[in-house]
């Protein structure tokens, strides 16, 4: 984003400090070999990182200060998810931080006071539907029932799930939660089965919460993809500078240089798409969701494209388990599938654009 955009909203220095802080911790703790070891079950990086994140306040980055957060809004969240994506860091950040945003936006004061400080402190993690727009749980007098595929750790403390005309918070201790092994081993899907479970809290306005959660998750997936795509591109170009064939580094072959230049160009465009969506959301633009939807669709597909080409540019080692490209390619594919299918997101953006235009608004204003 440009300096202008954020200056009036937040202290740019605070955001820069956040970025440096997060990047520094992840560089030290979640480097390539640590992530590979985590994937192979040889360390507890996910847990350790979560504890560190809690200690450093990252989990409250988007939560207002009165609820124990840092109050850095979607700018802060975008920075955090971007850096997590860069490091392919394991953990239930998208689900927990997005659930928090939905509570910030749509929860009653009582709900916010009860839940947000516990999230910000790292005490509890959340699960949310992997694709939140689907059918909800059954809600009878006895409680909520049904099954749902969610994004979140198997030991998530609660799930935020649609039920009837509302969304409910249900604590998961003692309920039927089973891990769903996925290709991306840096994140977890779980299947939740509830039978007459008692909601601990209710967020009325089903559509409002759905929109808030979709927005938060879409921004998270987009920012994560942006960081991931740039990271694997940089790693790949570094590899190409060291890998020798035909008596020269393969980075010197013009056909590969041109592909790398095209990747750099895609990354630059992607940066601005994500920044645009963040800016529109932060400024409360009525058409923000048009750009959030498009940013998620485009950024996740660009991440898939970039990671795919990075596998190929690595040559033989690119499709081995021990090198980095596969880690990012799998993360890209999961991002692509999260939130809402990209064709549907583009339709959603088109509907929003049409509504804005019919209302006489231009959705294309950029400001200076």
């Amino acid at each position, binding site marked *: 984003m*440009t300096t202008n955009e954020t200056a009036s909203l937040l202290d740019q220095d605070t955001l820069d400090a956040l970025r440096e802080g997060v990047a520094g911790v992840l560089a030290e703790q979640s480097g390539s070999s640590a992530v590979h070891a985590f994937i192979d079950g040889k360390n507890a990086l996910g847990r350790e990182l979560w504890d560190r994140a809690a200690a450093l306040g990252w989990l409250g980055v988007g939560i207002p200060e009165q609820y124990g957060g840092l109050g850095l809004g979607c700018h802060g969240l975008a920075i955090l998810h971007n850096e997590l994506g860069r490091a392919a860091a394991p953990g239930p950040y998208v689900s927990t931080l997005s659930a928090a945003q939905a509570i910030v936006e749509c929860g009653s004061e009582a709900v916010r006071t009860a839940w947000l400080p516990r999230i910000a402190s790292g005490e509890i993690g959340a699960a949310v539907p992997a694709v939140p727009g689907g059918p909800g749980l059954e809600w009878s007098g006895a409680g909520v029932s049904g099954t749902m595929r969610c994004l979140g750790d198997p030991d998530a403390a609660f799930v935020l799930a649609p039920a009837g005309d509302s969304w409910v918070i249900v604590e998961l201790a003692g309920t039927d939660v089973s891990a769903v092994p996925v290709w991306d081993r840096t994140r977890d899907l779980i299947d939740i089965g509830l039978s007459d479970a008692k909601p601990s809290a209710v967020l009325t306005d089903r559509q409002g919460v759905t929109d808030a959660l979709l927005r938060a998750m879409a921004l998270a997936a987009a920012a994560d993809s942006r960081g991931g795509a740039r990271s694997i591109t940089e790693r790949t*170009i570094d590899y*190409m*500078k060291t890998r020798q064939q035909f008596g*020269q*580094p393969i*980075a*010197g*072959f*013009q056909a*590969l*240089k*041109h592909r*790398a*230049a*095209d990747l*750099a*160009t895609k990354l*630059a*465009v*992607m*940066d*601005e*798409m994500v*920044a*645009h969506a963040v800016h529109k959301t932060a400024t409360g633009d009525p058409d923000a969701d048009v*750009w959030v939807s*498009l*940013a998620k*669709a*485009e950024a996740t597909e660009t991440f898939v494209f970039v990671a795919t080409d990075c596998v190929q540019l690595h040559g033989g080692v690119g499709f081995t388990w021990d090198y980095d490209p596969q880690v990012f390619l799998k993360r890209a594919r999961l991002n692509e599938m999260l939130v809402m299918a990209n*064709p549907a997101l*583009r*339709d959603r*953006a*088109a509907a929003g*654009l*049409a509504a804005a*235009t*019919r209302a006489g608004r*231009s959705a*294309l204003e*950029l400001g*200076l």
Partner: protein
Amino acid sequence: MTILGSQHDLPAFRQEIRAWLADVVPADWKARMVRASNEEYIAFQRWWMAERGKVGLAVPHWPVEYGGAGLTLRHLIVIADEMARADAPQARLFIISLIHLPGTLFPHGTEAQKRRFLAGVAKGDVWCQGFSEPNSGSDLASLRTRAVRDGDHYVIDGQKIWSSNSMYADWCILLTRTDPDAQKHRGITYFIMDMRSPGVEVRPIRQANGRSEFGEIFLTNVRIPAENMIGRENNGWRVAQATLASERGVIAFEGAERQRYEIESFYRRALESDAAWLRDDQLRREFVGLLAEMQAGRRLLRRVLEESESPEASASVLPSIVKLSATVLRQRICSFMTRIAGIEGQEFAMLSEEPFGSPMFDFLSSFSGTIAGGTNEIQRNIVAERGLGMPRV
């Protein structure tokens, strides 16, 4: 209140420009320019430059001492935005005059050169650029047009190509070879050439879109006074870098802002007429995807402009990245428009301006973006080598 008088209040400045444009831009100018003769087109461009001059917007970005208004980047963005919103004419004929000449003279010209030639621009002098040659396109430094010293003149022989509007130009910024034995970047000298000098002949080049925006310049025994050399003899390559850097983003920025309004009004019409492609999953999604890229591109261009004011600008490859993304996007947008226009869109319609509505004309014109000004292939080399540090082998 005049436009320049309101420059310290940006919203007011914007309002003043908007009011002036509403007043000065003829409602029918585009219709008139469609299939206008070359002479009519030139006359119209000169009229438009004169009108801009009347309100102090001929050379708004130049320092006050050379006749400019010394406006900031934010003002230029406002001007471009309002011009685009009003669908006002572009100063196409004066691009070299307004951008490349000052971009060269400010850092490298003598005070006398600046006073003389910059003053002419504000009065409507048309400049062209004599850089590329038939055998020196991407490999510009291999140019062979000779300049030989003869007393207080240089004598020029050779041939230049791809020179925009050279058919109408008063002056030319010209690269020549003065030392054929030196390493190729080291024997080049930079001149200002009067296009009315004996021995200058220009032939228009017809493009695929039917228009002739470029000329080929044949130079036979053309005499240039030594005082019209910019920089030192054999130091022209360095001077040329300033020329090439000067266009960073500015022209593309104006184009992108106009594209925004064109696309937006195209979309509004489609919505009003309930166009079939809006109900087609594939085409509708393709359109919003292009829109997302367009917005990102507009933001990128703002970054290039911001960056151009910083000292590190010359090391940045962002202008190359922007050229790559913006020109390819433009081509894809025009191609999309061509596809949804159906068989009707194949009708021949040659225009002097480039609005949407004749998608094939715009599509064919879009190659000027991907090829001219350093082909996209050359830009990829720059991004990879200078931006990503991939080795030249």
